[in-house]
């Protein structure tokens, strides 16, 4: 937490979640409160979504506090103004679909990470077994 003019200003981090990656804003930035940080996240989402609304509805920005604890998350489809002219039920369906796609992306990313960890463990085990075999032989 930074101190500006005798006042403590909280630091927030923004984590961009796309279909196949997690991109953190490592340095973070200072915002008066969580609401201001959320407003910034919404503006950033609009920047990133602009002219790509159809493809990026399932992208999200997570707002985290300085200890990287998640505070809130914005789903791009939820703030997409290009679908505001659609009937509410169609908009709602689009948002639900985007949310499910986001959940699927999370699951695929988690699976990839697990596979990478398993692979690393197996490689490590191979090295250890090789070394043990060498000692015995």
């Amino acid at each position, binding site marked *: 937490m930074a101190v500006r003019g005798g006042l403590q200003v909280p630091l927030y981090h923004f984590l961009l979640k796309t279909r196949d990656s997690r*991109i953190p*804003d490592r340095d973070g930035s200072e915002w008066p409160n969580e609401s201001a940080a959320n407003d*910034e996240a919404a503006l950033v989402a609009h*920047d*990133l979504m*602009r002219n790509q609304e159809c493809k990026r509805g399932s992208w999200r920005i997570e707002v985290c506090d300085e200890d990287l604890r998640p505070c809130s998350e914005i789903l791009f489809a939820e703030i997409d103004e290009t679908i505001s002219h659609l009937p509410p039920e169609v908009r709602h369906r689009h948002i639900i679909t985007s949310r499910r796609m986001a959940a699927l992306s999370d699951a695929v990313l988690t699976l990839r990470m697990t596979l990478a960890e398993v692979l690393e463990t197996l490689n490590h085990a191979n090295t250890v077994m090789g070394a043990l075999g060498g000692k015995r032989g």
Partner: protein
Amino acid sequence: MHGNGCLSALSAKAMSLFRPYLTETTFGEGTVLWEGKKLASEVYFPVSGLVSIVVALSDGGSVEVGSIGLEGAACAGFDADQSDFNTRGLVQIGGRFVRLPMSQLFAAKENTEIENLIAFCRDWILMQAQQEAGCTAVHSADKRFCRWLFQACERMETDTLLLTQETIASVLGIRRTTVTLIAQTLQAYGLIRYRRGKIVVLDRARLRAAACECCNSLDRQHWPSTRLLDARRSLNRKLSDF
């Protein structure tokens, strides 16, 4: 004295018309070279810096409509008596610049090469403004970011750019946080490396591939320096055939 492409492309004869009036200066990032609605007094030939031509907005912000590096020359307008331009000239990347009084530029325009220089530089600014308008309207922030970075490298003839994320944000009219997230993404994919105030492009070809199509529309063949060289070569060919 100069490493500017336009000045280098001029023949010794054309250059002799300018030489007595040229001065070299260093401008830092953020220097305002001209303000809107004023007659141009000088033309600037970047040697190692980059000038942004921006349109100032009423809320204090501004958006870039063109930029000039080593490939061209920048001024408020390439017309002797036109002060209707609403642009501001801003040094986006500090460096060395060669300055020439506008009066001397126009005094020399009877020379065909100088006439070409004025026409090509004017075309270049107009062409960029048209392309920027289309680009801003339809292309995504990340593709525009890649395009701007690629073009800056090409026009500065370097892969290391000294500029802040705030600068890029103001050029593209997007949030600084957006720039941070895009830069982090490009870094994760090995296209760039960045620290505060410094961006190093690691793979210019992949950066171009990630950029919008505007890179093709504004590539080297359209640069004033390239067109000047082509015009000179063409004239030399005609003279040798004569």
